């Protein structure tokens, strides 16, 4: 995860793209990343009826199907057929990279503004990255059930790294966070590191 120790200024373009290779190829967003959310093995038991009693679970499932599932699907198909006549699309906006705060001349307030806006967009993106990694860990835990401690070690480790990186970069900036404060935080981090060494 390229958020680790990369700092507030610079090194952003590669960050997300290298980690999620599927985004760099143009894929339709409906298909989720199959490697991140693997399907659990099917556990449908073989039907082996030994009694003459009726299978109540089958009855209930058929009841549910005819009373709830079919009407709802029919309604949705009806509405979709109306909607399909005028279909239109929306796109995901891509922003150009502008010079960072460190590359701005002193007193060039327009450059400061652009850098600040870019930093805010990157902040939002990083928040979403953390949410996605969290979601993956949670999904893995749900999938594995009791044995999540061993089987989900990779997801949990990734989440821990990402959360640590996020905390170290954007941690206690607060509600009025800005690119400048983030830069100052980075400076403090670097100073602390230099002092340790």
């Amino acid at each position, binding site marked *: 995860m390229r958020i680790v120790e990369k700092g507030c200024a610079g090194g952003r373009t590669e960050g997300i793209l290298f980690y999620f290779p599927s985004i760099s190829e*143009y894929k*339709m*967003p*409906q298909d989720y990343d199959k490697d991140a959310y693997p399907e659990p093995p099917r556990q449908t038991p073989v039907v082996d009826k030994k009694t003459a009693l009726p299978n109540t679970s089958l009855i209930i499932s058929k009841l549910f199907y005819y009373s709830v599932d079919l009407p709802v699907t029919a309604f949705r198909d009806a*509405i979709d057929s*109306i*909607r399909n006549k*005028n*279909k*239109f*699309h*929306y*796109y*995901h*906006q*891509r922003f150009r990279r502008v010079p960072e705060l460190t590359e701005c001349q002193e*007193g060039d*307030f*327009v450059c400061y*503004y*652009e850098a600040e*806006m870019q930093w805010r967009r990157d902040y939002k993106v990083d928040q979403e990255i953390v949410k996605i990694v969290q979601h993956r860990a949670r999904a893995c835990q749900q999938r594995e059930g009791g044995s999540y401690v061993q089987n989900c070690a990779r997801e949990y480790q990734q989440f821990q790294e990402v959360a640590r990186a996020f905390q170290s970069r954007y941690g206690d900036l607060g509600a009025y966070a800005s690119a400048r404060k983030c830069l100052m935080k980075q400076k403090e981090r670097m100073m602390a590191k230099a002092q340790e060494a």
Partner: protein
Amino acid sequence: MTAMSVLRTAAAFAARLNPLKRANQSSHLLSRAVVRSEQVAVRYESHGKRMFVIKPTEFYDGRFLKLMRYYVLLTGIPLAVFITFVNVFIGEAELAEIPEGYEPEHWEYYKHPITRWIARNIYDSPVKDYEKMMALIQKEAEKAQMRKRELEVRRHMRERGDGPWFFVNTLNEELIDQGHKAVPDE
């Protein structure tokens, strides 16, 4: 007085005639007999006598809630119907990749048709907002720079005294008549 007694006898007669049909309960008030409370016609009460419950008025609360419901639903129902029709007949947009060489308009980045309409007709495009903000910042930056320069210039002029500001008007030396000072008094 006599009218009352006539009414009373008439009521008692009516009550005696038809003990089952209790048409007018108030006739019992006129007769001198005491009303046996257990014999009062009960329909949906389970048991016990009928009570006259004294509670505080619900008139004002009821009126307020009725009026509130009325005014909220006056615009609420048309709005809900409109939004339902938009969602059913127009529907939300679908996410797609940006085709090659195509620059989407600024409203084509939103999903819901009403949001798109607002972004298209009411709001300025985010690019325009960005540029407006940058223009404002540049103007303010220029103003700040000019003010700083002015303060600097004032400081210099005040210090050196050779500028167009901060000098005291002195008389022209050539106007002073030095004639009578040429020779000392003796």
